[in-house]
C-alpha cells in the first residue's frame, strides 16, 4: 500500500489534524495566489486570448516589428526639419522594394500603417486615390502620379475619357513615400547563433523634381541560438510575388541527399513550379491550343541572400528562387496575341474563300496575305517553335501557292524548315513546291500590277519622231498586260504628256484625265530615239539619259537618277544600240518592281 502522507505515530492525534488543516490552508492560499497571478484566460488549448499586442517574436518579420519600425520611421520624419516642406503638400504612397528580401513582408499594410501614423500627427495629408504601391520602382510610381497631374491640367490629352473623369478634381500629389526592405542573414563562425539584419530604408521624394526630400534607415537585428530548427526556415508563410519577380516555393534538401543533386533538383522544381504558374494564364484561355512556355524561356535565379547562405556548411538545406516578371508576362502576352491573331487570320481567310466573285475573292485573299505577312514579321520563329506562328506561316505559304505565287511560298517554307515542330509536313510541302516553275520577277510584277489601273506616259519624244512612240508604248502595254495590269486608263501620246507638270511632289493631270492607281512614265528626256531598220522587230537606239518615274495615286514613289541605274552592270553606251523595245520595256518593269514598296497594301 502506498502512503502519500507523512505518518508520525508518535505524535498525538490532535497535532496531526492541525498540521493537515494548516497544510490545506497554505495549499489553498497558494493555489489562489497562482490563479490571481496568471493571465485572465486559462491555458486551455482551444481558448482564445485577446490582447492589444502580439507576444510571439520570431526571427522573421513579425507584427511587433511592424509597430516598432513604423514608430521609429514616423518619429524621425515628424521631428526632422524637412517636415516643413512636406506640410505644404499632399503625399502619395509609393512602392516598397523588397525584391531581395526572402522573408514575407506585407508591404501594402506597412505603408498604410505608416501613413496612418503620420497623418494622425496632424502635420501630413495623404491622398487616398493617387497612390502607386504596386509600381515596379519609385520612379515608375512618380511617372504615374505626374501623368495624372498632366491630365488634370489638360483633360483633352487623355486617351480615354474615363481617365479624365478619374483625374477630374483630384488633389495634386507633390510627394511620394516609398521604401526598400533588405535583409542579411549571418551565422556566427561557431555556428551557434543565427542573426538576421533587416534594413528599412524609407524616403520621401518630390514627384516633379525626382529628388529625395527626406530619408531614413532603420535597422533591426534579430538573433537566436542556431540549432537544427533555426537552420530550417523559421517562417511559416512563404513570401509572395513582388511587382518585379515571381517567387517559387521554398525548396528543401531531403535528408541524406547529395548537396549538388539536391541543388539541381531544387532548381528544376522551382522552375517547374514557376512555369506552371505562368502557364496557368495561358491555360485559362485555351489549354489545348496555346503552347505553354518552355523551361528555357523562363530562367530562374536564387534570391541574392540565398545565393550566399547556400554556401555555408550549415545552410545548404533550402533555396528560394525567383524569375523576373516582365519577360515572363511578355511571353504570355505574345502567346495570347499570336493565338488571337491566328484565329482572326483563319476567320478572314475563310470569309475570303466564301466570296463568289473571283477578282473580289483574290483581293480579299491578298489582304489576308498582308495580314499574315505583317504578323509573321512581328513574331519570327525563335529558338523554341511556337505552334501558331508556324501554323500561320504554313497558312501563308499555302495561300501564296494557291494564288499562283509559289516563289513567295518558297522562302517561308525554308524558314519553317530550319526549326519546325513538324518537319515531315514541311518536307512534303517543299517537295510539292519543287514541281512548280518559279519566276520571282514575274510573280512580283503580277503581285504589284494585277487589279490596278495603270498609265504609261511618255513625257517627251526625244527626237520629235512621234511615230516611233506608239510602237514602244504598245509593246510596254502588252508586257504590262501579261502581268495582269489590264486596266490601263491613260496612255498619253507625247504631245499631250509633255504638257503635264512633272516634279517630285506629284503630277498635275489635264482636266479630262483621271489619275490612275499607278503611273508608269517612260521618259527619254532630251535623248535621241532611232529605229534600226536592219534588225527585224525594230530596235530603238537612245542617246542621252533615260529616265523613269513611278507615281502612285498622284504621289511620287520612285525614280531613277540616270538610266544606267536600270542596268548597273551595263554602261548605257553599250546597250542602247542593241536592245529591242520589248526588252527595254521588260527591263523598265523589272526596275519598277525593284523599287516597289511591297509593304503597301493592295
Amino acid at each position, binding site marked *: 500500500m502506498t*502512503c*502519500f502522507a507523512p505518518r508520525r505515530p508518535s505524535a498525538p492525534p490532535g497535532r496531526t489534524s492541525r498540521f493537515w488543516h494548516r497544510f*490545506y490552508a497554505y*495549499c*489553498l492560499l*497558494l*493555489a489562489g495566489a*497562482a*490563479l490571481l*497571478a496568471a*493571465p485572465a484566460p486559462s*491555458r486551455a488549448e482551444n481558448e482564445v486570448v485577446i*490582447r492589444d499586442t502580439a*507576444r510571439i*517574436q*520570431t*526571427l522573421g518579420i513579425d507584427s*511587433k516589428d511592424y509597430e516598432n519600425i513604423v514608430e521609429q520611421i514616423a518619429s524621425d520624419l515628424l521631428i526632422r526639419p524637412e517636415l516643413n516642406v512636406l506640410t505644404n503638400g499632399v503625399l502619395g504612397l509609393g512602392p516598397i522594394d523588397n525584391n*531581395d528580401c526572402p522573408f514575407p513582408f506585407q508591404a501594402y499594410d506597412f505603408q498604410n500603417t505608416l501613413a496612418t501614423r503620420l497623418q494622425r500627427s496632424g502635420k501630413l495629408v495623404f491622398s487616398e486615390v493617387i497612390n502607386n504601391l504596386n509600381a515596379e520602382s*519609385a*520612379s515608375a510610381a*512618380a*511617372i*504615374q502620379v*505626374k*501623368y495624372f*497631374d*498632366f*491630365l488634370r491640367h*489638360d483633360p483633352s*490629352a*487623355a486617351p480615354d475619357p474615363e481617365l479624365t473623369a478619374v483625374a477630374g478634381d483630384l488633389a495634386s500629389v507633390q510627394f511620394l513615400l516609398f521604401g*526598400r526592405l533588405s535583409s*542579411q542573414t*549571418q551565422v556566427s*563562425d561557431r555556428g551557434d547563433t543565427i*542573426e538576421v*539584419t533587416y*534594413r528599412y*530604408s524609407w*524616403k520621401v521624394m*518630390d514627384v516633379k*523634381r*525626382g*529628388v529625395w526630400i*527626406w530619408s531614413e*534607415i*532603420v*535597422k*533591426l*537585428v534579430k*538573433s*537566436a*541560438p542556431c*540549432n537544427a530548427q*533555426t537552420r530550417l526556415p*523559421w517562417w511559416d508563410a512563404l513570401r509572395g510575388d513582388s511587382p518585379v519577380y515571381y517567387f517559387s516555393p521554398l525548396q528543401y534538401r531531403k535528408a541524406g541527399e547529395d548537396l549538388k543533386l539536391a541543388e539541381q533538383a531544387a532548381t528544376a522544381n522551382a522552375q517547374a513550379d514557376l512555369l506552371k504558374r505562368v502557364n496557368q494564364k495561358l491555360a485559362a484561355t485555351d489549354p489545348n491550343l496555346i503552347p505553354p512556355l518552355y523551361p528555357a524561356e523562363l530562367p530562374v535565379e536564387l534570391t*541574392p*541572400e540565398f545565393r*550566399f547562405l547556400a554556401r555555408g556548411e550549415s545552410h545548404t538545406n533550402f533555396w528560394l528562387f525567383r524569375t523576373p516578371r516582365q519577360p515572363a508576362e511578355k511571353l504570355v502576352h505574345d502567346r495570347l496575341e499570336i493565338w488571337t491573331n491566328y484565329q482572326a487570320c483563319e476567320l478572314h481567310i475563310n470569309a475570303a474563300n466564301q466570296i463568289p466573285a473571283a477578282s473580289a475573292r483574290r483581293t480579299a485573299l491578298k489582304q489576308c496575305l498582308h495580314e499574315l505577312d505583317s504578323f509573321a514579321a512581328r513574331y519570327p520563329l525563335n529558338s523554341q517553335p511556337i505552334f501558331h506562328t508556324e501554323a500561320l506561316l504554313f497558312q501563308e505559304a499555302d495561300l501564296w501557292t494557291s494564288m499562283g505565287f509559289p516563289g513567295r511560298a518558297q522562302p517561308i517554307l525554308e524558314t519553317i524548315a530550319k526549326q519546325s515542330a513538324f518537319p515531315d509536313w514541311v518536307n512534303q510541302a517543299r517537295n510539292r513546291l519543287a514541281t512548280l516553275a518559279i519566276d520571282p520577277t514575274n510573280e512580283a510584277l503580277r503581285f504589284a500590277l494585277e487589279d490596278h489601273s495603270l498609265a504609261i506616259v511618255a513625257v517627251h519624244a526625244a527626237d520629235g519622231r512621234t511615230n516611233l512612240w506608239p510602237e514602244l508604248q504598245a509593246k510596254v502595254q502588252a508586257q504590262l498586260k501579261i502581268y495582269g495590269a489590264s486596266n490601263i486608263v491613260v496612255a498619253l501620246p507625247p504631245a499631250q504628256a509633255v504638257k503635264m507638270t512633272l516634279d517630285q511632289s506629284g503630277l498635275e493631270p489635264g482636266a479630262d484625265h483621271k489619275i490612275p492607281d499607278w503611273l508608269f512614265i517612260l521618259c527619254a528626256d532630251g535623248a535621241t530615239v532611232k529605229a534600226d531598220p536592219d534588225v527585224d522587230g525594230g530596235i530603238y537606239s537612245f542617246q542621252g539619259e533615260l529616265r523613269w518615274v513611278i507615281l502612285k495615286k498622284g504621289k511620287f514613289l520612285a525614280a531613277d537618277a540616270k538610266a544606267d541605274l536600270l542596268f548597273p552592270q551595263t554602261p548605257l553606251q553599250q546597250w542602247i544600240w542593241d536592245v529591242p523595245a520589248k526588252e527595254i520595256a521588260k527591263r523598265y518593269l523589272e526596275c519598277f518592281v525593284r523599287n516597289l514598296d511591297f509593304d503597301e497594301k493592295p
Partner: protein
Amino acid sequence: MNRKIHLLPAVLLLGSVGLLAGCQGPGEVTSHSHEVVISDQSRITTLGFDANDYRSIAQKIYNSLATSANIEPGKVVAMGPAVVGADQNIQFDPVTMHEEIATLAQRGGIFSVSEAIRGTKNVSTEEEADQFVEKFRQQVQQLAAAQSQIDNPEDYARYGQLAKINYLLVFELSTQSQVQGKLTEVTYRFNCRLVGTQTGLRKWVDQITYTKSYER
C-alpha cells in the same frame, strides 16, 4: 479515505507551481521556438561584407565628401553607377550601399539625391567598368536632352520638370584575400568619385580601404 484526500493539496501545489512557471508578464517577449534577441546592431562579425560594414564605409565616404568635395549648394547627385568587381563569393549589395551614402548625404544636406536614375553592375574587368560608367553618364545626358523635347503626356510624366542632375556618385568595389597560416585577411577597396555629368570631370575622388582579418 483520509489518505486519498491528502492527494488534493499535493496536486494543487504542483499545479500552482506549474502555473506560476508557465505564466509570464504581459510585456515579456517569448520566442516561437527559440529565444529571439532584438537590437539595432549586428553582433556577428564575419570576414564577408557583413551588416555592420555598410554604415561604417558609408560614413567614411560621407565624411570625405562633406569635408573635401566642396559641392555647391543645391546640386543634385544621382546614385550610380556602383560597379562591383569584387570576388563573386562575397555578398555585397550595391543598392544598400547607395542608400546608406545617399541617406547620410541627404540628411547632412550636402546635396540632393535624384531618384530618376540609378545603376549597379557586376563587372569582371576594369574596361567593362569604365564602359559602364561612361554609358551611365550618357544616359543621364540623354535624360536631360529628352526634357527639352516633350510633346506628349507620357513624355511629360517621364521627364517633365525633373531636376537637372549635376553629378554622379560612382563607386567601385574590389577585394583582395590573403591567407597566411591560420590568418585570413580580406581587404575591401572602394574607389569613389563624384563625376560632373556634363563635363565628365572628376570633382572629388577618394579611396577607402577596409581590411578584415580572422585567425583560426
